[in-house]
């Protein structure tokens, strides 16, 4: 598959970059983009799409080959990225907060300082949802039901233990004094189905995974775990609107190993920014309901550090593993 991707990259790069004549010295050979998840997943599709546009904006016939190194919840790929030569020819996708929580748990063979962020692409907040026929109309209803019968309400979880969903629920329990129990479904499709079929009373997942069902009225979002409301669903309140300071979002961004020469970092950052502003890319992303949110290297680093700090605090009070 590597060869295939490479070939595909060649063809596209050949077609897209024919006119640009000025050949800068970087990149002189194909850039490897490590994806720590399997082909076909959200991160993989995001990587393959942005790679195509970054090739265009790097110019000079630049090629980016996406290489999947899945396993252990991303740890295999991220460890490899951390250990890669910092010459700008190995970059990769990172997914905070999962990326950070492995470090906070003391499990990872890397630290967040082993990376040089290039920029953030996607910012997808967590949400709490119920089915359309649920008796819980608002967040307050659900919290009240829990207070009446503690330890009985099960919330479907789109991830595993330690996922951003799980951490969101732990924080909710801590801040609202509730006793919701998570049921781990491992991925989004099964928990969405269980929610629609009424097998679980409520569920947590990411906003982009529920926008369509919320719009069609099949599910009701009780709260978004973000600082502000979503442009896609302006009527849906955040947790902050309802008096609970709960902010848990997942992000997808690009990073290189620490120590990449500054001029190469600048080129990569500029290419990412230009790719994200490319009308064709923006158009496709908006159609696909991908919540794009560009942050430059500096801002992305600050975000990653903030996520680590919050996670460490949660870990101290309620270690999830």
């Amino acid at each position, binding site marked *: 598959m590597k060869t295939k991707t490479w070939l595909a990259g060649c063809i596209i790069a050949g077609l897209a970059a024919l006119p640009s004549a000025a050949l800068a010295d970087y990149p002189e050979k194909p850039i490897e983009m490590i994806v720590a998840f399997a*082909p076909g997943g959200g991160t993989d599709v995001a990587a393959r799409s942005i790679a195509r546009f970054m090739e265009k904006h790097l110019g000079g016939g630049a090629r980016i080959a996406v290489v999947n190194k899945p396993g252990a919840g991303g740890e295999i790929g991220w460890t490899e990225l951390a250990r890669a030569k910092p010459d700008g020819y190995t970059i990769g996708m990172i997914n905070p907060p999962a990326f950070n929580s492995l470090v906070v748990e003391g499990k990872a063979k890397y630290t967040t300082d082993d990376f040089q962020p290039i920029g953030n692409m996607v910012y997808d907040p967590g949400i709490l949802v119920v089915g359309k026929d649920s008796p819980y109309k608002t967040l307050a209803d659900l919290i009240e039901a829990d207070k009446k019968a503690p330890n009985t309400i099960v919330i479907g979880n789109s991830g595993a233990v330690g996922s951003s969903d799980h951490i969101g629920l732990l924080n909710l329990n801590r801040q609202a004094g509730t006793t919701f129990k998570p*049921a781990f479904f491992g991925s989004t499709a099964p928990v969405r189905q269980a929610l629609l079929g009424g097998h679980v009373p409520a569920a947590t997942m990411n906003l982009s995974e529920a926008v369509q069902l919320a719009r069609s009225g099949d599910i009701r979002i009780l709260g978004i775990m973000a600082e502000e409301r979503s442009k896609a669903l302006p009527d849906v309140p955040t947790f902050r609107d309802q008096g609970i300071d709960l902010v848990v979002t997942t992000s997808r961004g690009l990073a290189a190993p620490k120590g990449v020469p500054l001029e190469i970092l600048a080129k990569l950052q500029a290419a990412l920014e230009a790719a994200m502003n490319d009308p064709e890319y923006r158009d496709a992303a908006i159609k696909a309901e991908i919540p794009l949110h560009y942050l430059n290297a500096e801002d992305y680093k600050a975000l990653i550090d903030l996520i680590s700090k919050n996670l460490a605090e949660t870990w101290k009070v309620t270690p999830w593993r």
Partner: protein
Amino acid sequence: MIDALLSALPLVFEPANLFAVLLGTVAGLVVGALPGLTVTTGIAVLIPLTFGLDPLFALGMMAGMYNGGSYGGAIPAILLRVPGTPASVATILDGYEMTKQGKAAYALQVAVVSGVIGSVLSAISLIIFAPGLVKLSLLFGPAEYFWVAILGLATVASLLGDDFLKGLIATVIGLLIGTIGTDISSGTERYTFGLLEFADGLDIVVLLSALFAIPPVLMMIEEALKTGMPGDLLKLKRQGSVLADWRRYLPIWMRSSVIGIIIGVLPGAGGSMSCYLAYNDAKRASRQPETFGKGNPEGVAASEAGNGADNAASLIPALTLGIPGSGVAAVILGGLLVHGLRPGPQLFAEHPDVVYGFMVQMLLSAVMLAVVGGLTATRIFGQALRLPRVVLAPVIMLFVTVGVYAVNNTMFDLYTLLGIGLVAYMLDKLDYPNAPIILGVILGPIAESQLLLAMTISGGDPMALVSSPMSMIMIALTLFVLATPLWTVWKQRRRSSVEPAK
């Protein structure tokens, strides 16, 4: 619905879009036939390439890739005893036996005709039932899925082979392998020996290749050493016509397709389960169940019809609710989104021409498969078998190692492949069947995690497992599957005691 269908037809039959379906079908055949490359990977690579193209061109390629790849897996399964895709394992059981008996051409013909019939019926059911069938899948919660997995495990009874005890041991080996990895509810690692590479359990593609590809390669080498360079046992001449024998296969095609469609609609169960259930059903219904696994073409027909019927049906919940019925459907969902097609009930109202066009393309690619897969592919891939064994063995080994490496891009998987492959070779020599192993690996973790979920949701009340009508139906089916072999044995004993003279 008829209006939407009619307005979509001209778009589907535009030359460019027709070509896209054809291109996808051929590419799918190749991807499916190469061990290690899965349809999921093929479509994942395709999506970014089709970014700026017309939606129906892109979707046509995906539809072709899906049906083509799903059948492609049967080619090496029949000719080489190497499953091209996880779903083709059940096809090996009788398909490779037929090749050994010199009936490879007939086996391939049965496979392609059955696959086409399954895919066509599946595509038709997609077009007709899409919104209605979704209600069925919503009835399945964790408790119901637990029983589906148990039903699948019960079908092991029909895969055990001649030696009951060895079959059970093989199943337990599979269940034990299935426990390797990280438990998603507690984060506890089991049997990973501290290796990151084992944290998600053994990769199913690696395991399949090790169990099914390595032993035959080693046997080929062994044979070549003993006999030098034997003449080819393969005759790819016309060996009867499947269509002429349609009366024999019709009931199998119908039942297997229904099974495939139902399993396809249920998210999470996926292709390999529908093949096993269809295979088991055909064996159960047969008058000579003992001929299954020994080169009975009905086994190939059941497995491939079930496999094909799974395809379009798994798109039903994907298109109408955004819930993919299989890994491939999940990737296609991503492909739809890239083209601005938001799955859900409104999809059918907002973009009827594209949705109906896509569904017609699923049907079209199934029909094209009959032409492309039947004639061309069989001839081309069949040539592989004409190679002398001393050449063929390393060629297969090459394909398998490249394919396995491509899954995770890591050497670790190749070491695992070799290690498990050697063990599998020994098990093969000792006459342990390997199909029950793979079934245990696939179904064990499903049964465990769904049981755990059901218990979490019910607060530990075991009655939750039997409370819904759907659970009861699954339990009844399981008992039925388990009782059938006993009933046959009892009947045989009775017959032999009634007619002792014979």
